[in-house]
């Protein structure tokens, strides 16, 4: 991992390597090699388990639960990564051989096949992330369609209770760990190095590895459906001690979280190092676009908090496979400890799922209102405020869990205080739009949708933060309403805004504006129809995570289910638009939105190494509507692409 940076940028003309033939193909990095290395690593894991159990005189020597954890869920994925070549460079380094000079053959993509290889180009990786995460978004969404069909009427119609629990748990796990968190990482992967004026991330190979852990985690979650007893069914929260005594599918959650978590920690580390050490000359911290600020804070959260969920899942799993007693009360364990450790990650995690979205919205609102961000520094500082406060509120998820009573009021107070920095951001966005020239393009529509819906989610959050209300509303559909207003109306809307906003930059083509708007309105209507009534049935006491409910909630649930199908159908328009436009949409200019940030000052899609020469940053990124303002000078000032943005601005 050490000489990465230097060697990644050594310029070097490498002779084109001829594609391997015959047996050599088995040794060249790729899926063929991955096939046998996966098997080999699996067999090694199997042997390891059997050997040690034989050594310790355990009976039976082959325990399939442990083989599952060691061989299937740990070593086989490592074998796969080895096979596709994620470790090749390090393998050379470790064995003390001279590392091959970087020939940049893993940079850029010339055909769609390059997206299925280990690629070290942050732009390719960004697209890989997005395609993968949207794939899991669809799967998770289809699961929701199934259980909404089940919930349309009281009684059980389609699935049994364990399957129902499995579906809702998988739905949440996929949406959180395989869609929202990594989709933000994908957008940032594409945009952040460009915005900083850097040729790539600090550790391109680590970046590639982080990506490849994701499909592994996702397939692991899905594979849980195939084992005896079905998928893990304890919710995305996987509370102990319940989770320690569930069918085998549970360990697929425990381990899947480890892979997804490792992926986010490595990406976060990469972002932090990139942002600190690779900013273009003149790009001080106070000139960074807010998207960069947002990812800086998010990455700090990830690096600090994510190890806690790793720990919590290890403990639950050890309680099961190694008969430890972390949470077994009769053996001196402390069951409530699980919830403390889990929420100490998972409350900060809700900000991991929101702050990058705040960054996207700041870009979109400034550009489409043609005005500087109101209170830029306060916007950055409020992110930091949320970062710090975010670690002090975790127990508001545990008001009814039987925790120490004295913890309640402090947690209630901090939870309410954290709404202050969030409120600052909301008002800053409103003030940015105030008297601006608002262009209602699709990204802006999603930004406005985000603003309104997120405020509603924040309000139900404040309700829940107050102990008496939470005691009544806990574990009801009111919580489901809250989390979907913040995570769908909040995070997912910002992801859509970001995808539409950077679509021209990523693909070099424009999306279809009319379809984009149609997508927005159908999503907006479907979303509210689905989740707003949940507030009411929740307050009347309909419990969450239960497959059946009393007759009185029947009508509203039918309404909810119908709207949820509309919501599901609205994404078809999105995918149609994206795929169609990627193929034959009109060619996008370098800077279709007349934005000032650096990624828009290069061609669409950007050149392989982003910039011919590192740009010189001369001012802040949001000087919209100010004649002659520029954020950066490119190519030594010879071809200032920024100028056309400025001229157009002046003409109006």
């Amino acid at each position, binding site marked *: 991992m050490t000489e990465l940076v230097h060697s990644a940028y*050594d310029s070097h*003309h490498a002779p084109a390597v001829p594609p391997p033939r015959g047996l050599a193909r088995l040794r060249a990095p790729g899926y063929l090699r991955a096939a046998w290395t996966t098997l080999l690593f699996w067999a090694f894991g199997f042997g390891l388990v059997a050997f040690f159990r034989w050594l310790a005189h355990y009976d039976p020597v082959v325990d399939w639960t442990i083989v599952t954890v060691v061989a299937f869920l740990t070593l086989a994925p490592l074998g796969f990564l080895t096979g596709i070549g994620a470790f090749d460079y390090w393998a050379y380094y470790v064995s*003390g051989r001279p590392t091959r000079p970087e020939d940049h053959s893993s940079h850029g993509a010339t055909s769609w096949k390059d997206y299925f290889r280990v690629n070290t180009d942050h732009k390719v990786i960004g697209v890989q992330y997005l395609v993968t995460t949207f794939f899991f978004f669809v799967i998770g969404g289809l699961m929701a369609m199934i259980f909404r069909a089940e919930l349309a009427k009281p009684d059980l119609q389609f699935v049994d209770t364990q399957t129902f629990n499995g579906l809702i748990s998988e739905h949440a796990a996929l949406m959180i760990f395989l869609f929202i968190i990594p989709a933000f990482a994908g957008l940032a992967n594409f945009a952040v190095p460009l915005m900083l004026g850097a040729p790539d991330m600090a550790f391109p190979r680590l970046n590639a590895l982080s990506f490849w852990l994701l499909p592994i985690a996702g397939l692991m979650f899905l594979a849980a459906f195939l084992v005896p007893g079905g998928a893990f069914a304890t919710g995305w929260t996987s509370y102990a001690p319940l989770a320690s005594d569930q069918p085998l599918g549970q360990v697929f959650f425990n381990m899947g979280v480890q892979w997804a978590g490792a992926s986010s920690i490595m990406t976060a*580390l990469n972002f932090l190092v990139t942002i600190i050490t690779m900013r273009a000359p003149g790009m001080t911290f106070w000139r960074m676009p807010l998207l960069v600020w947002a990812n800086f804070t998010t990455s700090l959260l990830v690096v600090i908090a994510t190890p806690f969920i790793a720990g919590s899942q290890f403990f639950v799993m050890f309680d099961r496979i190694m008969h430890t007693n972390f949470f077994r009360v009769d053996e001196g364990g402390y069951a409530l400890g699980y919830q403390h*450790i889990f929420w100490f990650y998972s409350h900060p995690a809700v900000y991991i799922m929101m702050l990058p979205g705040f960054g996207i919205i700041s870009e979109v609102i400034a550009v489409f209102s043609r005005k500087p961000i109101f209170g830029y520094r306060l916007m950055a500082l409020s992110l930091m405020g949320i970062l710090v406060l975010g670690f002090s509120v975790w127990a508001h998820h545990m008001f009814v869990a039987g925790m120490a009573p004295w913890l309640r009021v402090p947690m209630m107070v901090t939870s309410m205080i954290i709404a202050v920095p969030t409120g600052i951001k909301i008002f800053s966005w409103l003030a940015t739009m105030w008297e601006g020239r608002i262009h209602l393009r699709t990204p802006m529509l999603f930004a406005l949708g985000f603003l309104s819906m997120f405020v509603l989610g924040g309000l139900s959050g404040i309700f829940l933060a107050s102990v008496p209300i939470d005691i009544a509303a806990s574990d009801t559909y009111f919580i489901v309403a809250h989390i979907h207003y913040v995570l769908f109306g909040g995070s997912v809307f910002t992801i859509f805004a970001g995808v539409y906003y950077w679509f021209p930059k990523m693909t070099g083509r424009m999306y279809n504006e009319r379809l984009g708007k149609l997508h927005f309105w159908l999503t907006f209507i479907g979303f509210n129809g689905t989740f707003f009534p949940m507030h009411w049935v929740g307050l009347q006491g309909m419990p969450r995570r239960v497959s059946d409910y009393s007759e009185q909630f029947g009508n509203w649930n039918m309404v909810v289910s119908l709207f949820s199908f509309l919501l599901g159908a609205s994404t078809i328009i999105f995918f149609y638009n994206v795929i169609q436009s990627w193929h034959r949409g009109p060619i996008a200019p370098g800077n279709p939105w007349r934005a000032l940030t650096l990624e828009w000052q290069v061609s669409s899609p950007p050149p*392989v190494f982003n910039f*011919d020469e590192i740009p010189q940053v001369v001012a802040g990124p949001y000087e919209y509507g100010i004649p002659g303002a520029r954020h950066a000078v490119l190519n030594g000032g010879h071809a200032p692409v920024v100028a056309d943005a400025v001229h157009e601005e002046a003409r109006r």
Partner: protein
Amino acid sequence: MSAHAGSSHSVGHGPPIANQSSRVSASVLGMFLFIASEAMLFGAFFTAYFFVRVVNPEAQSWPLEPFHLPVFVAGVNTAILVTSSFTMHWALQSVKRGNRAGLQAGLVLTLLMGLAFLLTQMLEYARIGFNPGDGAFGTIFFGLTGLHGAHVFVGLTLLAVATVRAFRGHYTPEHHHGVEIPGIYWHFVDVMWIVVYATIYLI
């Protein structure tokens, strides 16, 4: 880079050299952030320890009757590990001064002491008389020392790589990140052990 500057955006020409916007080198910073994350993982385990031993109203005795902790042997082991931090430091100072023999000797000594530590711990495990299932006490004992042992193993692997490369003459007074970075990690593993030893064995 300069030779190819201005050429087209083909794959052949390398990227422009990134601006260095900070005095810390990327890999050292990366290692520190990784360590921050690792420290939090230990934090999760210490939180479990804290719950089991302090918060739990039905906390059991520590160590759980009738077991004993080999405080003395572990103390000797602590001394070994702490010494190895000094030899690591010596190795790094040597390479900075261009003293290759010092670098090699320092690395080998560190490696040997790390191995000695790990072996002692394994023997301790074999003879300690209880296992992870013996109360929350056994769980936490094996959890924390096991987590630490895994880190020693990783540290030793990194050191082994550095040693191999040192004997092949890969490091110079100017370029020695390959020694410095495993060294930082090794000091972290060392400091972490002192905390583990103090909380598990001494308190």
